[in-house]
Protein backbone atom coordinates (compact mmCIF):
# COMPACT_ATOMS: atom_id res chain seq x y z
CA UNK A 1 0.00 0.00 0.00
CA UNK A 2 1.62 3.22 -1.11
CA UNK A 3 -1.22 5.63 -0.56
CA UNK A 4 -2.41 5.80 3.03
CA UNK A 5 -5.54 7.27 4.55
CA UNK A 6 -3.36 10.14 5.75
CA UNK A 7 -2.23 10.85 2.15
CA UNK A 8 -5.84 10.86 1.00
CA UNK A 9 -6.78 13.37 3.71
CA UNK A 10 -3.88 15.61 2.72
CA UNK A 11 -4.57 15.43 -1.04
CA UNK A 12 -8.30 16.03 -0.48
CA UNK A 13 -7.38 19.18 1.40
CA UNK A 14 -5.21 20.35 -1.50
CA UNK A 15 -8.08 19.67 -3.90
CA UNK A 16 -10.69 21.43 -1.74
CA UNK A 17 -12.63 18.23 -1.24
CA UNK A 18 -13.70 16.78 2.08
CA UNK A 19 -14.94 13.25 1.28
CA UNK A 20 -17.00 11.06 3.60
CA UNK A 21 -15.24 8.32 5.61
CA UNK A 22 -16.58 5.74 3.10
CA UNK A 23 -15.31 7.80 0.19
CA UNK A 24 -11.87 8.02 1.81
CA UNK A 25 -11.66 4.26 2.25
CA UNK A 26 -12.68 3.75 -1.37
CA UNK A 27 -10.19 6.35 -2.51
CA UNK A 28 -7.29 4.62 -0.70
CA UNK A 29 -8.23 1.37 -2.46
CA UNK A 30 -8.71 2.93 -5.92
CA UNK A 31 -5.61 5.14 -5.86
CA UNK A 32 -3.44 2.21 -4.83
CA UNK A 33 -4.88 0.01 -7.55
CA UNK A 34 -4.49 2.69 -10.25
CA UNK A 35 -1.06 3.92 -9.14
CA UNK A 36 0.12 0.32 -8.92
CA UNK A 37 -0.69 0.02 -12.61
CA UNK A 38 1.00 3.36 -13.36
CA UNK A 39 4.25 2.07 -11.86
CA UNK A 40 4.94 0.15 -15.05
CA UNK A 41 6.23 3.46 -16.44
CA UNK A 42 9.33 2.88 -14.33
CA UNK A 43 10.29 0.08 -16.71
CA UNK A 44 11.35 2.78 -19.21
CA UNK A 45 14.56 4.76 -18.92
CA UNK A 46 13.59 8.36 -19.57
CA UNK A 47 16.74 10.01 -18.20
CA UNK A 48 17.60 11.50 -21.60
CA UNK A 49 14.06 12.26 -22.75
CA UNK A 50 12.54 15.75 -22.81
CA UNK A 51 9.04 16.05 -21.33
CA UNK A 52 6.22 16.95 -23.69
CA UNK A 53 3.65 19.38 -22.31
CA UNK A 54 1.61 19.87 -25.44
CA UNK A 55 1.45 18.87 -29.08
CA UNK A 56 1.81 22.33 -30.57
CA UNK A 57 5.33 22.52 -29.18
CA UNK A 58 5.99 20.91 -32.53
CA UNK A 59 4.27 23.51 -34.71
CA UNK A 60 5.17 27.12 -35.38
CA UNK A 61 7.50 27.52 -32.41
CA UNK A 62 10.71 29.46 -32.76
CA UNK A 63 13.23 26.95 -31.44
CA UNK A 64 15.90 29.62 -31.01
CA UNK A 65 13.83 31.48 -28.42
CA UNK A 66 13.13 30.75 -24.78
CA UNK A 67 9.96 30.80 -22.73
CA UNK A 68 6.85 32.49 -24.08
CA UNK A 69 8.79 34.01 -26.99
CA UNK A 70 8.90 30.53 -28.49
CA UNK A 71 5.16 30.85 -29.01
CA UNK A 72 5.20 34.31 -30.60
CA UNK A 73 3.06 33.00 -33.47
CA UNK A 74 0.12 32.72 -31.11
CA UNK A 75 0.37 36.18 -29.60
CA UNK A 76 -1.87 39.14 -30.32
CA UNK A 77 -2.25 42.72 -29.27
CA UNK A 78 -3.74 43.02 -25.80
CA UNK A 79 -6.56 45.45 -26.40
CA UNK A 80 -9.65 45.99 -24.26
CA UNK A 81 -12.83 44.81 -26.00
CA UNK A 82 -10.51 43.44 -28.66
CA UNK A 83 -11.78 40.02 -29.67
CA UNK A 84 -15.01 39.83 -27.78
CA UNK A 85 -17.01 42.34 -25.85
CA UNK A 86 -16.67 41.89 -22.12
CA UNK A 87 -19.69 40.45 -20.36
CA UNK A 88 -22.06 42.96 -18.87
CA UNK A 89 -22.22 43.01 -15.09
CA UNK A 90 -25.63 41.37 -15.26
CA UNK A 91 -24.41 38.56 -17.52
CA UNK A 92 -21.42 37.97 -15.26
CA UNK A 93 -23.61 37.70 -12.19
CA UNK A 94 -26.58 35.84 -13.69
CA UNK A 95 -25.22 32.38 -12.88
CA UNK A 96 -23.96 33.23 -9.40
CA UNK A 97 -25.56 31.24 -6.58
CA UNK A 98 -25.69 34.45 -4.55
CA UNK A 99 -25.15 38.10 -5.51
CA UNK A 100 -26.48 41.54 -4.64
CA UNK A 101 -26.53 42.74 -8.24
CA UNK A 102 -23.11 44.34 -7.91
CA UNK A 103 -20.91 41.71 -6.24
CA UNK A 104 -20.73 37.95 -5.82
CA UNK A 105 -21.73 37.16 -2.24
CA UNK A 106 -19.91 34.50 -0.23
CA UNK A 107 -19.93 33.43 3.42
CA UNK A 108 -17.64 35.45 5.62
CA UNK A 109 -13.95 34.74 5.13
CA UNK A 110 -12.53 35.84 8.50
CA UNK A 111 -13.89 34.52 11.78
CA UNK A 112 -13.83 36.75 14.82
Amino acid at each position, binding site marked *: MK*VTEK*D*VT*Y*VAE*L*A*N*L*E*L*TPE*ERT*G*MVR*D*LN*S*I*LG*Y*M*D*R*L*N*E*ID*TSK*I*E*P*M*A*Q*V*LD*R*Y*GVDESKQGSER*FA*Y*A*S*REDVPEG*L*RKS*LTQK*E*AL*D*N*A*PDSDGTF*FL*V*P*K*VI*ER
Partner: protein
Amino acid sequence: MHSTSLTIDAARFAVQERKTTALALLEAHYERIQKEDGQIGAFLTLCKDRALEQADRIDRMAAEGKPLPPLGGVPVGIKDVMVTRGVRTTAGSKILDRYIPPYDCTAVARMEAAGAVVLGKMNCDEFAMGSSNENSAFHPVRNPRDLNRVPGGSSGGSAAAVAADMAVVTLGSDTGGSIRQPASFCGVVGLMPTYGRVSRYGLIAFASSLDHIGPLTKTVKDAAIVLRTIAGRDPMDSTSADVPVPDYVGELDKPVRGLKLGVAREYFGEGLDDEVRHAVESAIDKFKSLGCEIVPVSLPHTPYAIPTYYLIATAEASSNLARYDGVRYSYRAPGVKTLSEMYRRSRDEGFGAEVKRRIMLGTYALSAGYYDAYYLKAQKVRTLLTRDFDEAFCKVDAIVTPTSPTAAFRLGEKSNDPLAMYLADIYTVTADLAGIPGISIPCGQTKEKLPIGLQVLGKHFDESTILRVAHAYEQAA
Protein backbone atom coordinates in the same frame (compact mmCIF):
# COMPACT_ATOMS: atom_id res chain seq x y z
CA MET B 1 -38.38 9.96 -48.11
CA HIS B 2 -37.72 9.04 -44.51
CA SER B 3 -36.96 12.39 -42.98
CA THR B 4 -34.97 11.14 -40.00
CA SER B 5 -32.52 8.88 -41.80
CA LEU B 6 -30.86 11.48 -43.98
CA THR B 7 -27.28 12.43 -44.65
CA ILE B 8 -26.23 16.08 -44.65
CA ASP B 9 -26.41 16.45 -48.42
CA ALA B 10 -29.77 14.67 -48.67
CA ALA B 11 -31.25 16.92 -45.98
CA ARG B 12 -29.84 20.11 -47.47
CA PHE B 13 -30.90 19.23 -51.04
CA ALA B 14 -34.41 18.40 -49.85
CA VAL B 15 -34.72 21.78 -48.12
CA GLN B 16 -33.06 23.64 -50.99
CA GLU B 17 -35.36 22.01 -53.57
CA ARG B 18 -38.41 22.69 -51.36
CA LYS B 19 -39.22 18.96 -51.14
CA THR B 20 -39.34 19.55 -47.41
CA THR B 21 -38.57 22.43 -45.07
CA ALA B 22 -36.05 22.89 -42.31
CA LEU B 23 -39.05 23.26 -40.00
CA ALA B 24 -40.51 19.90 -41.10
CA LEU B 25 -37.12 18.23 -40.61
CA LEU B 26 -36.72 19.61 -37.14
CA GLU B 27 -40.27 18.61 -36.20
CA ALA B 28 -39.68 15.08 -37.52
CA HIS B 29 -36.55 14.84 -35.38
CA TYR B 30 -38.29 16.15 -32.27
CA GLU B 31 -41.06 13.58 -32.83
CA ARG B 32 -38.47 10.85 -33.13
CA ILE B 33 -36.77 12.06 -29.94
CA GLN B 34 -40.13 12.11 -28.18
CA LYS B 35 -40.76 8.52 -29.27
CA GLU B 36 -37.29 6.98 -28.82
CA ASP B 37 -35.30 8.96 -26.31
CA GLY B 38 -37.30 7.92 -23.24
CA GLN B 39 -35.51 4.56 -23.39
CA ILE B 40 -32.15 5.77 -24.77
CA GLY B 41 -31.52 8.98 -22.81
CA ALA B 42 -29.27 10.71 -25.35
CA PHE B 43 -30.54 14.27 -24.83
CA LEU B 44 -30.21 16.34 -21.66
CA THR B 45 -31.77 19.59 -22.90
CA LEU B 46 -33.79 20.53 -25.97
CA CYS B 47 -33.58 24.08 -27.34
CA LYS B 48 -36.72 24.35 -29.46
CA ASP B 49 -36.86 28.16 -29.67
CA ARG B 50 -33.33 28.39 -30.93
CA ALA B 51 -33.96 25.55 -33.41
CA LEU B 52 -37.18 27.13 -34.70
CA GLU B 53 -35.51 30.48 -35.24
CA GLN B 54 -32.67 28.90 -37.21
CA ALA B 55 -35.02 26.67 -39.25
CA ASP B 56 -37.07 29.72 -40.14
CA ARG B 57 -33.96 31.57 -41.31
CA ILE B 58 -32.99 28.62 -43.53
CA ASP B 59 -36.52 28.19 -44.92
CA ARG B 60 -36.65 31.86 -45.87
CA MET B 61 -33.34 31.49 -47.70
CA ALA B 62 -34.65 28.43 -49.54
CA ALA B 63 -37.92 30.20 -50.40
CA GLU B 64 -35.96 33.09 -51.87
CA GLY B 65 -33.98 30.62 -53.96
CA LYS B 66 -30.69 31.49 -52.27
CA PRO B 67 -28.09 28.71 -52.18
CA LEU B 68 -28.04 27.12 -48.72
CA PRO B 69 -24.78 26.88 -46.77
CA PRO B 70 -23.22 23.39 -46.35
CA LEU B 71 -25.34 22.42 -43.33
CA GLY B 72 -28.45 24.37 -44.30
CA GLY B 73 -31.44 22.96 -42.41
CA VAL B 74 -29.54 19.97 -41.00
CA PRO B 75 -30.70 18.96 -37.47
CA VAL B 76 -27.73 18.47 -35.17
CA GLY B 77 -26.99 17.75 -31.50
CA ILE B 78 -24.18 19.22 -29.40
CA LYS B 79 -22.41 17.35 -26.61
CA ASP B 80 -23.19 19.14 -23.37
CA VAL B 81 -19.56 20.10 -22.79
CA MET B 82 -19.80 22.84 -25.44
CA VAL B 83 -21.32 26.06 -24.18
CA THR B 84 -24.41 27.47 -25.88
CA ARG B 85 -25.56 31.01 -25.22
CA GLY B 86 -28.85 31.01 -23.33
CA VAL B 87 -29.14 27.20 -23.39
CA ARG B 88 -28.34 25.24 -20.22
CA THR B 89 -24.92 23.54 -20.42
CA THR B 90 -24.12 21.00 -17.71
CA ALA B 91 -21.08 18.96 -18.78
CA GLY B 92 -23.16 16.06 -17.44
CA SER B 93 -22.51 17.34 -13.91
CA LYS B 94 -24.71 18.33 -11.03
CA ILE B 95 -22.25 21.11 -10.28
CA LEU B 96 -23.38 22.92 -13.47
CA ASP B 97 -26.98 21.77 -13.57
CA ARG B 98 -28.32 25.31 -13.70
CA TYR B 99 -25.56 26.95 -15.74
CA ILE B 100 -26.81 29.16 -18.61
CA PRO B 101 -23.73 30.24 -20.59
CA PRO B 102 -23.44 33.85 -21.79
CA TYR B 103 -21.56 32.91 -24.98
CA ASP B 104 -21.29 30.27 -27.72
CA CYS B 105 -18.55 27.73 -28.30
CA THR B 106 -16.75 28.55 -31.59
CA ALA B 107 -17.47 25.11 -33.09
CA VAL B 108 -21.19 25.51 -32.36
CA ALA B 109 -21.24 29.05 -33.76
CA ARG B 110 -19.53 27.79 -36.94
CA MET B 111 -22.07 24.95 -37.28
CA GLU B 112 -24.94 27.43 -37.00
CA ALA B 113 -23.31 29.92 -39.35
CA ALA B 114 -23.17 27.02 -41.84
CA GLY B 115 -26.93 26.53 -41.45
CA ALA B 116 -27.14 23.71 -38.88
CA VAL B 117 -30.25 23.58 -36.69
CA VAL B 118 -29.26 22.77 -33.09
CA LEU B 119 -31.91 20.46 -31.58
CA GLY B 120 -30.40 20.21 -28.13
CA LYS B 121 -27.57 19.13 -25.87
CA MET B 122 -26.29 15.58 -25.66
CA ASN B 123 -25.81 13.51 -22.53
CA CYS B 124 -22.24 12.50 -21.66
CA ASP B 125 -20.05 11.27 -18.84
CA GLU B 126 -19.55 13.98 -16.23
CA PHE B 127 -16.92 16.42 -17.53
CA ALA B 128 -16.29 13.89 -20.32
CA MET B 129 -14.70 11.51 -17.82
CA GLY B 130 -15.74 7.99 -18.63
CA SER B 131 -15.92 5.28 -21.27
CA SER B 132 -19.53 4.14 -20.84
CA ASN B 133 -21.69 7.22 -20.24
CA GLU B 134 -22.62 5.73 -16.84
CA ASN B 135 -20.93 8.70 -15.13
CA SER B 136 -23.56 11.21 -16.24
CA ALA B 137 -25.00 12.91 -13.15
CA PHE B 138 -28.43 12.84 -14.81
CA HIS B 139 -28.97 9.39 -16.29
CA PRO B 140 -26.99 6.85 -18.29
CA VAL B 141 -27.38 6.52 -22.05
CA ARG B 142 -28.34 3.15 -23.50
CA ASN B 143 -26.98 1.75 -26.74
CA PRO B 144 -29.71 1.90 -29.43
CA ARG B 145 -28.42 -1.41 -30.86
CA ASP B 146 -28.97 -3.20 -27.52
CA LEU B 147 -30.56 -1.35 -24.64
CA ASN B 148 -28.76 -3.49 -22.06
CA ARG B 149 -25.41 -2.27 -23.36
CA VAL B 150 -23.55 1.00 -22.90
CA PRO B 151 -23.16 3.35 -25.87
CA GLY B 152 -19.53 4.01 -24.96
CA GLY B 153 -18.27 7.27 -23.63
CA SER B 154 -17.81 9.93 -22.96
CA SER B 155 -19.74 11.18 -26.05
CA GLY B 156 -22.33 8.41 -25.55
CA GLY B 157 -25.37 10.62 -26.12
CA SER B 158 -23.82 12.06 -29.29
CA ALA B 159 -23.17 8.58 -30.72
CA ALA B 160 -26.52 7.11 -29.66
CA ALA B 161 -28.50 10.02 -31.15
CA VAL B 162 -26.90 9.56 -34.58
CA ALA B 163 -27.30 5.76 -34.41
CA ALA B 164 -30.99 6.13 -33.51
CA ASP B 165 -31.68 8.77 -36.20
CA MET B 166 -32.49 11.43 -33.59
CA ALA B 167 -29.97 13.81 -35.21
CA VAL B 168 -28.25 13.81 -38.60
CA VAL B 169 -24.95 14.82 -37.02
CA THR B 170 -23.66 15.54 -33.53
CA LEU B 171 -20.54 17.14 -32.14
CA GLY B 172 -18.59 15.25 -29.51
CA SER B 173 -15.29 15.72 -27.74
CA ASP B 174 -12.35 13.33 -27.51
CA THR B 175 -9.70 13.46 -24.77
CA GLY B 176 -8.81 9.76 -24.61
CA GLY B 177 -11.15 8.20 -27.17
CA SER B 178 -14.46 9.82 -26.29
CA ILE B 179 -15.57 10.32 -29.92
CA ARG B 180 -14.13 7.19 -31.53
CA GLN B 181 -14.99 4.57 -28.89
CA PRO B 182 -18.72 5.47 -28.66
CA ALA B 183 -18.86 5.73 -32.47
CA SER B 184 -17.49 2.19 -32.56
CA PHE B 185 -19.97 0.90 -29.94
CA CYS B 186 -22.99 2.49 -31.66
CA GLY B 187 -22.03 1.70 -35.27
CA VAL B 188 -21.50 5.27 -36.53
CA VAL B 189 -18.58 7.33 -37.84
CA GLY B 190 -16.55 9.36 -35.31
CA LEU B 191 -13.69 11.70 -36.22
CA MET B 192 -11.12 13.16 -33.86
CA PRO B 193 -9.20 15.86 -35.75
CA THR B 194 -5.57 16.82 -35.12
CA TYR B 195 -4.97 18.74 -31.89
CA GLY B 196 -5.38 22.42 -32.76
CA ARG B 197 -7.36 21.73 -35.95
CA VAL B 198 -10.63 22.82 -34.29
CA SER B 199 -10.87 25.66 -31.77
CA ARG B 200 -11.53 24.64 -28.19
CA TYR B 201 -13.01 28.02 -27.30
CA GLY B 202 -16.19 27.31 -25.36
CA LEU B 203 -15.36 23.64 -24.78
CA ILE B 204 -15.56 23.06 -21.02
CA ALA B 205 -12.00 22.05 -20.20
CA PHE B 206 -11.16 18.53 -19.02
CA ALA B 207 -7.48 18.13 -20.03
CA SER B 208 -6.44 21.09 -22.13
CA SER B 209 -3.49 19.49 -23.93
CA LEU B 210 -5.65 16.52 -24.96
CA ASP B 211 -9.16 17.90 -25.60
CA HIS B 212 -10.48 17.80 -29.19
CA ILE B 213 -13.87 18.60 -30.73
CA GLY B 214 -15.08 16.47 -33.64
CA PRO B 215 -18.15 15.09 -35.41
CA LEU B 216 -20.18 11.88 -35.08
CA THR B 217 -22.00 11.11 -38.32
CA LYS B 218 -23.67 8.44 -40.42
CA THR B 219 -21.15 8.63 -43.27
CA VAL B 220 -17.50 9.54 -43.77
CA LYS B 221 -18.54 12.25 -46.23
CA ASP B 222 -20.67 13.88 -43.52
CA ALA B 223 -17.66 13.87 -41.20
CA ALA B 224 -15.66 15.61 -43.93
CA ILE B 225 -18.35 18.25 -44.41
CA VAL B 226 -18.54 18.99 -40.67
CA LEU B 227 -14.76 19.12 -40.26
CA ARG B 228 -14.49 21.60 -43.12
CA THR B 229 -17.10 23.72 -41.30
CA ILE B 230 -15.55 23.76 -37.82
CA ALA B 231 -11.80 23.61 -38.61
CA GLY B 232 -9.40 26.52 -38.75
CA ARG B 233 -7.69 29.20 -36.70
CA ASP B 234 -9.77 30.98 -34.09
CA PRO B 235 -8.21 34.02 -32.40
CA MET B 236 -10.11 33.07 -29.22
CA ASP B 237 -8.03 29.88 -28.83
CA SER B 238 -4.28 30.39 -29.01
CA THR B 239 -3.77 26.64 -29.45
CA SER B 240 -5.90 26.56 -32.60
CA ALA B 241 -3.46 26.10 -35.45
CA ASP B 242 -2.95 28.52 -38.29
CA VAL B 243 -2.83 25.75 -40.88
CA PRO B 244 -4.92 25.99 -44.08
CA VAL B 245 -8.12 23.93 -44.14
CA PRO B 246 -8.26 21.75 -47.27
CA ASP B 247 -11.38 20.74 -49.19
CA TYR B 248 -11.86 17.44 -47.37
CA VAL B 249 -14.94 16.50 -49.40
CA GLY B 250 -13.22 17.16 -52.73
CA GLU B 251 -10.39 14.83 -51.75
CA LEU B 252 -12.58 11.92 -50.61
CA ASP B 253 -12.78 10.21 -53.97
CA LYS B 254 -9.08 10.30 -54.76
CA PRO B 255 -7.92 6.70 -55.30
CA VAL B 256 -6.40 4.80 -52.39
CA ARG B 257 -4.46 2.44 -54.66
CA GLY B 258 -0.80 2.57 -53.71
CA LEU B 259 -1.36 4.07 -50.27
CA LYS B 260 0.72 2.45 -47.55
CA LEU B 261 -1.29 1.36 -44.51
CA GLY B 262 0.54 0.43 -41.34
CA VAL B 263 -0.51 -2.43 -39.08
CA ALA B 264 1.03 -2.44 -35.61
CA ARG B 265 1.08 -5.77 -33.79
CA GLU B 266 0.86 -3.89 -30.46
CA TYR B 267 -2.80 -3.24 -31.31
CA PHE B 268 -3.61 -6.92 -31.81
CA GLY B 269 -2.31 -8.39 -28.56
CA GLU B 270 -3.78 -9.75 -25.36
CA GLY B 271 -7.25 -8.52 -24.48
CA LEU B 272 -8.43 -8.12 -28.07
CA ASP B 273 -11.72 -9.92 -28.58
CA ASP B 274 -11.57 -12.59 -31.31
CA GLU B 275 -14.59 -11.33 -33.20
CA VAL B 276 -13.14 -7.81 -33.26
CA ARG B 277 -9.80 -9.19 -34.44
CA HIS B 278 -11.44 -11.10 -37.30
CA ALA B 279 -13.47 -8.08 -38.39
CA VAL B 280 -10.43 -5.82 -38.45
CA GLU B 281 -8.32 -8.41 -40.25
CA SER B 282 -11.04 -8.75 -42.89
CA ALA B 283 -11.00 -4.97 -43.27
CA ILE B 284 -7.24 -5.10 -43.79
CA ASP B 285 -7.78 -7.74 -46.52
CA LYS B 286 -10.33 -5.42 -48.09
CA PHE B 287 -7.73 -2.64 -48.22
CA LYS B 288 -5.33 -5.04 -49.93
CA SER B 289 -7.96 -5.76 -52.55
CA LEU B 290 -8.37 -2.01 -53.05
CA GLY B 291 -4.70 -1.79 -53.94
CA CYS B 292 -3.30 -0.52 -50.64
CA GLU B 293 0.03 -1.83 -49.50
CA ILE B 294 -0.06 -3.26 -45.96
CA VAL B 295 3.14 -2.52 -44.06
CA PRO B 296 4.00 -3.85 -40.59
CA VAL B 297 4.98 -1.02 -38.23
CA SER B 298 6.10 -0.99 -34.63
CA LEU B 299 4.72 1.29 -31.92
CA PRO B 300 6.76 -0.20 -29.06
CA HIS B 301 5.65 2.15 -26.26
CA THR B 302 1.95 1.38 -26.73
CA PRO B 303 1.72 -0.69 -23.48
CA TYR B 304 2.60 2.50 -21.57
CA ALA B 305 -0.12 4.64 -23.14
CA ILE B 306 -2.85 4.08 -20.52
CA PRO B 307 -0.73 4.97 -17.45
CA THR B 308 0.73 7.96 -19.30
CA TYR B 309 -2.67 9.16 -20.36
CA TYR B 310 -4.36 8.78 -16.99
CA LEU B 311 -1.57 10.65 -15.21
CA ILE B 312 -1.51 13.59 -17.62
CA ALA B 313 -5.27 13.80 -18.10
CA THR B 314 -6.04 13.70 -14.38
CA ALA B 315 -3.29 16.19 -13.53
CA GLU B 316 -4.69 18.67 -16.04
CA ALA B 317 -8.23 17.95 -14.88
CA SER B 318 -7.40 18.59 -11.23
CA SER B 319 -6.20 22.04 -12.25
CA ASN B 320 -9.03 22.80 -14.69
CA LEU B 321 -11.74 21.74 -12.25
CA ALA B 322 -10.44 23.98 -9.49
CA ARG B 323 -12.64 26.73 -10.97
CA TYR B 324 -15.83 25.09 -9.65
CA ASP B 325 -15.89 26.94 -6.37
CA GLY B 326 -19.57 27.74 -5.84
CA VAL B 327 -18.96 31.48 -6.26
CA ARG B 328 -19.46 32.55 -9.86
CA TYR B 329 -21.53 29.98 -11.72
CA SER B 330 -21.44 26.54 -10.16
CA TYR B 331 -23.50 24.75 -7.51
CA ARG B 332 -23.22 25.99 -3.93
CA ALA B 333 -24.03 23.70 -1.01
CA PRO B 334 -26.76 25.15 1.22
CA GLY B 335 -26.25 26.17 4.83
CA VAL B 336 -22.48 26.65 4.77
CA LYS B 337 -20.95 28.99 7.34
CA THR B 338 -17.45 29.75 6.11
CA LEU B 339 -15.78 30.21 2.75
CA SER B 340 -13.57 27.11 3.01
CA GLU B 341 -16.53 25.00 4.11
CA MET B 342 -18.44 26.35 1.10
CA TYR B 343 -15.69 25.30 -1.33
CA ARG B 344 -15.35 21.83 0.09
CA ARG B 345 -19.01 21.01 0.56
CA SER B 346 -20.05 22.47 -2.81
CA ARG B 347 -17.44 20.37 -4.57
CA ASP B 348 -18.19 17.27 -2.47
CA GLU B 349 -21.89 17.47 -3.31
CA GLY B 350 -21.52 18.78 -6.86
CA PHE B 351 -18.98 16.32 -8.29
CA GLY B 352 -19.66 12.62 -8.90
CA ALA B 353 -17.48 9.71 -7.78
CA GLU B 354 -15.34 9.36 -10.93
CA VAL B 355 -14.65 13.11 -11.17
CA LYS B 356 -13.54 13.16 -7.52
CA ARG B 357 -11.37 10.10 -8.12
CA ARG B 358 -9.64 11.83 -11.04
CA ILE B 359 -9.21 15.12 -9.18
CA MET B 360 -7.60 13.16 -6.33
CA LEU B 361 -5.36 11.15 -8.65
CA GLY B 362 -4.30 14.28 -10.55
CA THR B 363 -3.70 16.30 -7.40
CA TYR B 364 -1.63 13.45 -6.00
CA ALA B 365 0.45 13.20 -9.21
CA LEU B 366 1.16 16.94 -9.07
CA SER B 367 1.82 17.18 -5.34
CA ALA B 368 5.22 17.85 -3.81
CA GLY B 369 7.33 14.71 -3.77
CA TYR B 370 5.35 12.92 -6.49
CA TYR B 371 5.54 15.41 -9.37
CA ASP B 372 8.76 13.98 -10.84
CA ALA B 373 7.80 10.35 -10.27
CA TYR B 374 4.37 10.61 -11.87
CA TYR B 375 3.54 13.75 -13.83
CA LEU B 376 6.98 14.54 -15.24
CA LYS B 377 7.61 10.85 -15.95
CA ALA B 378 4.36 10.64 -17.88
CA GLN B 379 5.26 13.74 -19.91
CA LYS B 380 8.54 12.09 -20.90
CA VAL B 381 6.82 8.88 -21.94
CA ARG B 382 4.42 11.04 -23.94
CA THR B 383 7.43 12.17 -25.95
CA LEU B 384 8.34 8.52 -26.63
CA LEU B 385 4.78 7.62 -27.65
CA THR B 386 4.75 10.55 -30.07
CA ARG B 387 8.12 9.51 -31.52
CA ASP B 388 6.73 6.03 -32.16
CA PHE B 389 4.18 7.59 -34.49
CA ASP B 390 6.75 9.91 -36.09
CA GLU B 391 8.85 6.91 -37.02
CA ALA B 392 5.90 4.84 -38.23
CA PHE B 393 4.62 7.69 -40.40
CA CYS B 394 7.99 7.87 -42.17
CA LYS B 395 7.02 4.49 -43.64
CA VAL B 396 3.24 4.63 -44.03
CA ASP B 397 0.44 7.05 -44.94
CA ALA B 398 -2.00 5.86 -42.26
CA ILE B 399 -2.30 3.17 -39.60
CA VAL B 400 -5.29 0.85 -39.18
CA THR B 401 -6.25 -0.66 -35.81
CA PRO B 402 -9.32 -1.80 -33.93
CA THR B 403 -11.03 1.18 -32.23
CA SER B 404 -11.82 -0.75 -29.05
CA PRO B 405 -10.73 -4.22 -27.86
CA THR B 406 -14.36 -5.32 -27.49
CA ALA B 407 -17.81 -4.45 -28.73
CA ALA B 408 -20.19 -2.60 -26.37
CA PHE B 409 -20.24 -4.04 -22.85
CA ARG B 410 -23.22 -4.28 -20.51
CA LEU B 411 -24.36 -1.51 -18.20
CA GLY B 412 -22.80 -2.08 -14.80
CA GLU B 413 -20.21 -4.52 -16.16
CA LYS B 414 -17.19 -2.31 -15.40
CA SER B 415 -18.65 0.45 -13.28
CA ASN B 416 -17.19 -0.83 -10.00
CA ASP B 417 -13.66 -1.27 -11.34
CA PRO B 418 -12.11 2.04 -12.44
CA LEU B 419 -8.98 0.40 -13.83
CA ALA B 420 -10.96 -2.03 -16.01
CA MET B 421 -12.92 0.95 -17.34
CA TYR B 422 -9.68 2.84 -18.13
CA LEU B 423 -8.43 -0.12 -20.16
CA ALA B 424 -11.42 0.26 -22.51
CA ASP B 425 -9.48 3.21 -24.01
CA ILE B 426 -6.36 1.19 -24.76
CA TYR B 427 -6.39 1.71 -28.56
CA THR B 428 -7.54 5.31 -28.56
CA VAL B 429 -5.55 7.27 -25.94
CA THR B 430 -2.25 7.23 -27.81
CA ALA B 431 -3.58 9.37 -30.66
CA ASP B 432 -4.76 12.00 -28.14
CA LEU B 433 -1.35 12.03 -26.47
CA ALA B 434 0.45 12.42 -29.83
CA GLY B 435 -2.13 14.90 -31.15
CA ILE B 436 -2.66 12.96 -34.38
CA PRO B 437 -6.09 12.58 -36.03
CA GLY B 438 -8.12 9.37 -35.91
CA ILE B 439 -11.43 8.16 -37.28
CA SER B 440 -13.59 5.20 -36.30
CA ILE B 441 -15.86 3.64 -38.91
CA PRO B 442 -18.17 0.64 -38.67
CA CYS B 443 -16.58 -2.65 -39.82
CA GLY B 444 -19.09 -5.40 -39.33
CA GLN B 445 -20.72 -6.78 -36.21
CA THR B 446 -20.43 -9.55 -33.68
CA LYS B 447 -22.63 -12.66 -33.59
CA GLU B 448 -24.78 -10.76 -31.09
CA LYS B 449 -25.25 -8.04 -33.75
CA LEU B 450 -23.12 -5.48 -31.90
CA PRO B 451 -21.19 -3.02 -34.08
CA ILE B 452 -17.40 -3.27 -34.41
CA GLY B 453 -15.23 -0.24 -35.14
CA LEU B 454 -12.16 0.14 -37.36
CA GLN B 455 -9.79 2.97 -36.48
CA VAL B 456 -7.65 4.82 -39.04
CA LEU B 457 -4.89 7.04 -37.61
CA GLY B 458 -3.07 9.68 -39.65
CA LYS B 459 -0.29 12.24 -39.65
CA HIS B 460 -0.72 15.63 -38.00
CA PHE B 461 -3.08 17.79 -40.07
CA ASP B 462 -3.57 15.00 -42.61
CA GLU B 463 -7.25 14.35 -41.99
CA SER B 464 -7.65 14.20 -45.78
CA THR B 465 -5.86 10.86 -46.00
CA ILE B 466 -7.70 9.13 -43.13
CA LEU B 467 -11.03 10.41 -44.45
CA ARG B 468 -10.13 9.11 -47.92
CA VAL B 469 -9.10 5.69 -46.55
CA ALA B 470 -12.24 5.47 -44.41
CA HIS B 471 -14.43 6.55 -47.32
CA ALA B 472 -12.90 3.93 -49.64
CA TYR B 473 -13.60 1.21 -47.06
CA GLU B 474 -17.14 2.44 -46.46
CA GLN B 475 -17.88 2.42 -50.20
CA ALA B 476 -16.34 -1.04 -50.70
CA ALA B 477 -17.83 -2.71 -47.62
